[in-house]
């Protein structure tokens, strides 16, 4: 098997496993929708208010639901020893880990992005603003998955990892949160938002090129103390 076949085999395996547990796929999306719809109840149903807080609310909710969806990224494979087999295989660990994160993004990140225009409508965002929101999430959410996966790989061996995971990962999400929500806010003010989108793309490139190596070495560390 060459590298491409190994990558595809891993990707298809992960997607197949994910689609057999459909309820789990839907949970982060439902969480996303529920969290966003709490804000009008808590703050104000006034369209003017919702327009100003909308971009930030959607971005923070996306951040939290990505984090939630990642919690079990390596859990079952870690428990049954599949992670060790992946790391011991003749293929680079980083490559296979990249396939795993990509599969996870397809089943949890992508639905989140696809449903975001609907949430934009709920928060009274205009159509051209929703477009920018969509693009910013498209660029930002893969970064969130990749960086979050580093935190998951470091904490997968711990019993109560949830709170620690958020402490490790959320500070690293700050730049994406700033650029992502700010692109949408700038669009709402009829200002240029290209700079923010370029920043998001740059961060995505850094995360996808360096991230897999960090994740696979973090998994090696985690496997050494089961």
């Amino acid at each position, binding site marked *: 098997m060459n590298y491409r076949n190994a990558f595809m085999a891993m990707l298809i395996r992960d997607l197949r496993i994910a689609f057999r547990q459909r309820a789990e796929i839907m949970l982060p999306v439902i969480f996303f929708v529920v969290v966003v719809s709490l804000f009008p109840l808590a703050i104000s149903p006034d369209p003017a208010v919702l327009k100003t807080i909308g971009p930030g609310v959607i971005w923070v909710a996306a951040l939290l639901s990505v984090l939630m969806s990642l919690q079990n990224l390596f859990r079952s494979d870690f428990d049954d020893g599949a992670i060790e087999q992946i790391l011991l295989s003749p293929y680079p660990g980083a490559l296979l880990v990249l396939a795993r994160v990509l599969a996870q993004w397809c089943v949890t990140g992508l639905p989140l992005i696809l449903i975001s225009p609907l949430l934009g409508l709920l928060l009274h965002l205009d159509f051209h603003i929703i477009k920018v929101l969509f693009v910013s999430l498209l660029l930002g959410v893969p970064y969130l998955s990749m960086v979050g996966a580093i935190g998951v790989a470091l904490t997968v061996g711990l019993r109560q990892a949830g709170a620690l995971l958020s402490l490790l990962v959320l500070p*690293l999400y*700050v730049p994406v949160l700033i650029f992502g929500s700010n692109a949408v806010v700038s669009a709402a003010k009829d200002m240029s938002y290209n700079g923010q989108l370029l920043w998001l793309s740059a961060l995505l490139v850094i995360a996808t090129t360096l991230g897999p190596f960090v994740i696979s070495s973090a998994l090696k*560390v985690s496997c050494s103390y089961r």
Partner: protein
Amino acid sequence: MSKVDKLWLWFHRMASPAYFYNIAGRLLPWIAVATIILMLVGSVGGLVYAPADYQQGDGFRIIYVHVPSAWMSMFVYMVMAVNSAIFLIWHIKLSDIVARSSAVIGASFTFLALVTGSIWGKPMWGTWWIWDARLTSELILLFLYLGYIGLRSAIDDRRVAGRAAGILALVGAINIPIIHYSVVWWNTLHQPASVSKLDNPSIELSMLIPLLSMALAFKLFYLFIVLVNSRSELLEQEKRSQWVKELVTSQ
């Protein structure tokens, strides 16, 4: 022997626990004395001799604690990251011990910078907290420190904890500049008016000397704490080795 070989030899000797323990023990009193002298010079110079600021009055004097601790908060994280890299690449245990002992004191410096910044903000800005670029990035730095400490204490096995936390420190070190500049950029968009008065580059010499002396004192204080901490960690980790047994029986 060439110079490079000598350097490597020195490097290897410093990395040997027994040698480090002795050298650190001999250096400690000198560092302590220098820290105390510099701190006295800095506080007397800053609190008594430096003139009051024409805009901020005596309130500006808190910078003699605030600025050095803010500098140290970044510096210590970098020391931690460099030592983590050395530990991950060359498996030098001493580096891990230095990174480990740096974490708590680095977090304390960050906390001190935040607290003094907010105390300074009360008379200057009229409020305890403003989402100013520097305060915000200091706050996120504190979160990074807390994450590092949290991860370290969650894993029981020391060596594994060191490697896991080391990876985290490196990821954090790559992210710190990105976080810092994104926060600065965010801040200039939201509140263009709140430029800190400390930005004024011309600073009176009688104000600058106490500041530099305090900065140096903070650095030496950090060195002192790290050495004391590392020595006790070394004894704990190497308790079964020959040199520790000799050390204990000779006393």
